[in-house]
């Protein structure tokens, strides 16, 4: 197994990165997080472009970094292929010289030709990067990174420089390509769709910490905490003030859950597509509809609860919805409600810790 084990600590003036993570040897892994979460720094640490203050990076039998043994392999010796956010093409070299930059003299022409053909850029071989479109530049950058046959592919925001219309197509091509070359790839992105579409595994980062790591669908459907859910685009959060057995109370009202939530749980969350308007006799939360937006396949309905907290509801386009200003009762199916703690950091060695001091706004009063 050539999995990549990373356990490092890096400190900057305003920023601290702590990573404890095992990257699988196959497939695409995405690091997701808001800007400033440390995901790009994490990528640069793995590339050898940043030196952590402490820790260990091990890939299979090879040690890339170890503070105790005083080992630090520079980027030249890590056998990685990196694609930079703005592609960082060599503007003074032609497309084929860009692709051939990392190749040894022997067989250089053959390999250049192979990769140009593989990425469908053989027609641009003699052009300079400034004469290419965004999508073509990305393919040149990919070909250049792949040509020396790296053991690991690192991609920093691969789609940030392309049009929305191209994104879909390039995403598909990238996924196919990584499958083709059969190399593990690590992608850094702040774009949910990209990560969801491309990645087999995702890691969610915030403030220099890995909050959750796992299979993509698992993480998207079961965020481990409030912070992760926020990053993954969950919209509805109800703060828990009191827990009495299975009954949970907040300023927004009260709900009776199927099980008594753990004492650490500070939030209830539900996805907008699961919220509905209660049918007669069904209990729920009192709310007022304040905005209805038609989004084609569904309508996004914004509701205000009694404590003025907002709940978003997505209803199919053909389902009637009372007009804006109407008083309604919202039904939240118990199966779809998730109770979440404020913040949990993902620590590989299962020493999971709940930390509220980083997010003091989420401190709750349990009675």
């Amino acid at each position, binding site marked *: 197994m050539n999995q990549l084990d990373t356990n490092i600590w890096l400190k900057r003036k305003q920023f601290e990165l702590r990573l404890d993570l095992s990257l699988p040897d196959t497939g695409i892994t995405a690091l997701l997080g808001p800007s400033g979460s440390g995901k790009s720094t994490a990528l640069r640490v793995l590339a050898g*472009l940043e030196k952590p203050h402490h820790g260990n990076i091990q890939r299979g039998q090879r040690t890339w970094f170890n503070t105790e043994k005083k080992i630090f392999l*520079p980027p*030249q010796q890590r056998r990685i*292929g990196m694609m930079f956010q703005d592609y960082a*093409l*060599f*503007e003074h070299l032609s497309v084929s010289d860009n692709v051939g*930059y990392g190749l040894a003299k022997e067989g250089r022409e053959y390999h250049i030709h192979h990769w140009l053909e593989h990425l469908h850029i053989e027609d641009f071989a003699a052009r300079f990067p*400034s004469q290419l479109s965004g999508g073509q530049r990305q393919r040149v950058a990919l070909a250049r990174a792949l040509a020396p046959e790296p053991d690991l592919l690192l991609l920093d925001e691969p789609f940030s420089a392309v049009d929305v219309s191209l994104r879909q197509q390039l995403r598909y091509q990238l996924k196919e390509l990584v499958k083709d070359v059969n190399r593990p790839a690590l992608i850094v992105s702040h774009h949910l769709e990209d990560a969801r579409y491309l990645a087999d595994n995702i890691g969610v980062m915030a403030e220099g910490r890995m909050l959750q790591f796992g299979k993509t669908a698992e993480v998207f459907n079961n965020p481990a905490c409030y912070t992760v859910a926020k990053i993954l685009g969950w919209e509805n959060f109800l703060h828990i003030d009191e827990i009495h057995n299975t009954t949970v109370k907040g300023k927004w009202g009260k709900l009776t859950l199927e099980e008594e939530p753990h004492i650490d749980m500070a939030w209830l969350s539900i996805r907008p597509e699961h919220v509905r308007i209660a049918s007669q006799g069904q209990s729920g939360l009192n709310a007022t509809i304040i905005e209805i937006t038609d989004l084609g396949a569904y309508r996004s309905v914004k509701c205000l609860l009694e404590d003025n907290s907002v709940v978003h509801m997505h209803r199919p386009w053909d389902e009637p919805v009372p007009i804006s200003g109407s008083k309604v009762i919202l039904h939240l199916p118990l199966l779809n409600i998730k109770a979440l703690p404020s913040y949990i950091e993902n620590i590989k060695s299962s020493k999971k810790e709940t930390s509220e001091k980083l997010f003091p706004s989420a401190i709750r009063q349990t009675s």
Partner: protein
Amino acid sequence: MISDIDYQAVSVTLKLSGLTVIILLLIGIPLAWWLAHTRSRLKIAIETITALPLVLPPTVLGFYLLVFLGAQGPLGKFWTELTGHPLSFSFSGLVIASCIYSLPFVVQPIQAAFERLDKSAIEAAWTLGASRAKAFFTVVLPQSRRGLITAIVLGFAHTMGEFGVVLMVGGNISGETKVVSIAIYEHVEVLEYGAAHTLAAWLLIFSFIVLFMVYGMNRRLQMGFH
């Protein structure tokens, strides 16, 4: 046409300017790299010293250089012991003086080019296996070529046109330290306007051709990949 003495002045000028630019590139490129990347507190001091020749009157600079390079000066003494010849009023002394005088004209454009460089292109070269030296010669220098060309032209032209420093340090020895600008001054002093004209026109045309070629080359480079 042109007299032997004037011809010698032209030849000394070209030799001096060429040599000065070559030496200044060798010193200036590492110095500019250091200035562009250092976080050292010394940076401001070194930058100031590098820029001093821009503001000092040539006679002030020339005077201190004369003291420094003279037979009793620190470098002059050492040089005389080493080679048996004094530095002041010699071609070697002139080259050292010119290097100091033209230093900012070479260092500043290169430093500006290094500061503008796309840092990630250099890092990309490293991740592709290029050593730091290879990345420097294949990515940094080619991407800084416009700064380098500007440095060469300014360094060469500025050395060609210097007068005060040369007069103070080099004096006026035909075939050794007499440069075109001093030759012209001498001709005018004795009212030989014809000879002054020939030399001045020669300098003018030469400068025009060099600059013209450089701008033309720059434009071609630009159209190629910008």
